[in-house]
């Protein structure tokens, strides 16, 4: 009887320990690899920086090049929102001789799993109209990206 009681006690302890261990491992905090996996964090930051610089930079005499890049790099909601915005750009940029250059001046990865990531990006946008002097504006975006094979594609863009 004593042996059985001891066995039950140990089994109970074993269960408790395993529950604690899996609690630590599966917590939301643990599933988020942002900064913890330095390599993956750098990779997703680089992808976001490159994509934003491409899709938010355009020259009035070649807006098609930017649109092509956007089709390649954006998906889902991000692509729809972008398409709405770019309809106006396509209409106005040539007549205003508008050229916009976007620089990503900072990125920070908020969440990162194997499939999806969210990145806060600080942008500087310089706009030049004709021969005029460039004007600059700041923008902050929360960017959602999803893994598509070897690449990351942007699926969400939210001004913050």
């Amino acid at each position, binding site marked *: *009887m004593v*042996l*059985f009681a*001891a*066995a*039950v*006690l*140990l*089994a109970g*302890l*074993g*269960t*408790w*320990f*395993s529950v*604690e*261990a*899996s609690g*630590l*491992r599966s917590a939301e*905090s*643990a599933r*988020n*690899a*942002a*900064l*913890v996996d330095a390599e993956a964090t750098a990779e997703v930051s680089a992808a976001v920086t490159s994509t934003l610089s491409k899709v938010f930079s355009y020259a009035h005499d070649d807006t098609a090049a930017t649109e092509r890049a956007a089709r390649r790099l954006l998906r889902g909601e991000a692509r729809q929102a972008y398409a709405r915005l770019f309809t106006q750009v396509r209409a106005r940029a040539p007549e205003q001789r508008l050229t916009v250059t976007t620089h990503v*001046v*900072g*990125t*920070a*990865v*908020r969440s990162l799993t194997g499939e999806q990531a*969210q*990145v*806060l990006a*600080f942008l*500087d946008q310089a706009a030049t109209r004709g021969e005029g002097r460039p004007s*600059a*504006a*700041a923008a*902050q975006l*929360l960017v959602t990206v999803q893994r598509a094979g070897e690449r990351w594609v942007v699926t969400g863009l939210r001004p*913050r």
Partner: protein
Amino acid sequence: MARRVTVLAAAALVAAGLFAGWGAWSWLTAARDDTLAAAAARDEALRAGREHVAQVTTLDYRDVEAGIRRWLAVSTGPLRDEYAATDERTRTRLREGGTVATGRVLEAALSELDVEAGTAKMLVSVEITTARDGTEPAATRNRFVAGLRRTDGGWKLSALDAVPVGGGAS
């Protein structure tokens, strides 16, 4: 019969012992896992950073002293020194300005984390609403790079720098 029961009980005991041992090992390794510890530190630094930035972008002209005390409580190092050096002239100006500023963090994420050194950098987007008696409140969007440092009292702000257009962040 009694002997068979004893053998069975002994076997159960050994199995339970192994299970408990494995569970203990699993818990211990999880608790000492550097990756899990880093993830926990990241989340704690971010949580504290968000709250602290909201604090130091908030000030009510009706109680400037309490406001500055709150700034001091959430900051450390050079930023705390800067707040502590707020002179009487500035305090008077703030009291007489008639302005209530309220900061709200819209988004924030860490861009750097050094768990061992206990330091981190955070990008943060803040909406600051400024209300002055008799006028409509006005909201502005601001972006900052915040420095965070782990102290005995938790993570605190060691720097808060606005990121101007063309200025660049980390």
